């Protein structure tokens, strides 16, 4: 029986599957990552020098600069964006980034929050997830440790 979390969808999108990258630290996109490569450049962050491109990016909440949504849009334009974002609490900056991705580049980057548990503790980097934004569910299909 796979573990399923029920949350709230802050930015819509299609059902997707992908690999998780998880941090227990808040994240800000400006100064947080290189928007043309998806590499984390924030030297104060525990994901420093890792890539978020094509991953389901799990962190507790957004932080930092208000220009974040433009950085996210550049990630989308350069095909370096994460697949989806899961937070304990979505802040409006990254939520807007996801919405603008759809509006300007017709790219789905769903964002979900409020799972009733600390999602950054429940999911581990490398876990394979299935996200259904319409149903508001996140399912762990395969644990990283299973491999």
């Amino acid at each position: 029986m796979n573990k399923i979390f029920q949350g709230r969808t802050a930015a819509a999108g299609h059902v997707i599957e992908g690999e998780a990258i998880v941090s227990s630290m808040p994240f800000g996109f400006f100064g947080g990552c290189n928007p043309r490569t998806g590499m984390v450049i924030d030297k104060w962050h525990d994901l420093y020098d890792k890539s978020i491109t094509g991953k389901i990016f799990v962190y507790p909440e957004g932080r930092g600069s208000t220009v974040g949504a433009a950085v996210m849009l550049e990630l989308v334009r350069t095909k370096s964006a994460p697949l989806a974002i899961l937070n304990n609490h979505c802040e409006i900056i990254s939520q807007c980034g996801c919405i603008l991705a759809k509006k300007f580049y017709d790219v789905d980057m769903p964002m979900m929050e409020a799972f009733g548990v600390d999602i950054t503790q429940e999911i581990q980097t490398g876990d394979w997830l299935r996200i259904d934004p319409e149903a508001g569910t996140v399912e762990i299909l395969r644990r990283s440790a299973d491999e």
Partner: protein
Amino acid sequence: MAVFLTEEERAILNGEQGEARKFAMEILTTVAEGCGAKRLIPVQSVHLVLHTYKSCFDAGVEAAEKIAAMGAKFSVPTTIDPYGMDAEDWKAAKTPEHYAHMQMRLAKAIESMGVIPYWTCTPYYGFTIPKFGEHLAWTESSAVAFANTVLGARSNRETAIVDVCCAILGRTVETGLHLQENRYGEVRVNLELDRPLKQWEYGALGFRLGKTLGNRIGVVTGMQGTPTHENLKTLCAAGAASGSIALLHIVGITPEARTVEEAFGPKSPTAVYTITERDLLDTRSDMNTHKGNNIDLIALGCPQYTINEIVKVRDLLAGRKIASNIQFWIYANSFAIDMVEKMGVRKELEEAGVTIRAETCMIISPIHEWNFRVIMTDSGKCVHYGPMECNAEMVFGSTEECVEAGVAGHAI
């Protein structure tokens, strides 16, 4: 739950007021649905963060041009964050041609919509000074923190491109800090110093509060004396960069915190922290990513320096000159620069070896072209972003220490 729209807002969404307003309304209503807001509310002013090629990239320029091409016009007073390069002389500031070209494209698009070309991170010193209780759609994390904390105005941390939509419509989403129930304190921070803070300690306190609070609303007790506007500007900027502070209550100092009881309202603190003099010294040590005493650049003005701060540097120099092995730059907006020119202070500073950089800052201009390895600053915000955005190691100190280091040619 559906978002309630007025008759006019529905007409805008149906395209009855043109393509640009329809486009902006589609984005704002989607954001409103995403965060569960009930409605949109009018705002008195907007401050944009779609301002520099360095942080908006090609995607931001394309978005601005796309919206401008729809014939968009701003409907409320709208200011904008600093220019992406020295506005007086971008070539002398070693700005690459392509970068300058893209910056000018971005500026042209935004200016066509009717922005007040006040390129500054401190719009609260200017033409759109918020009143207590007024609703704003502001960006620039430090300005949002200042407007909420110091002025008691109400703004969320709006973001790039959505800010342009807010300016077009004169509206934003009613969520977060626009609602009284979300403005009360959540966490208590007891400051245990039996004296007023020294100038550098405001930056260090902000930096530490940002790390400690994240996005929770703190209620700080025990702050002695009367901090200046500049002290609070420094504190807010550091906390908004190292964390997500958008509103902080400082009991006896900020307007929604005349008492502890008022600051917490119906809420009780979920955590209590203590900050001592020792903690601020430890924070200062953490802020210094460079431990040696060599410095390439001293960069002041993050947020941009006020007239008072510029004059203070002149006074601290007291006729001495900056050492020839070091660059010493002050970032300021056009308003402050005009004034210090009229006062003769700019000339004095330039003769002493100080460079005034106009309407921009170290974080959002292409400073990496200079290959500075070590930057000293009096800004907790600059310390946070410097390693990533300036590609340099950071040294933090008071303004006095920065000036002394400038004269000596190395940190003291």
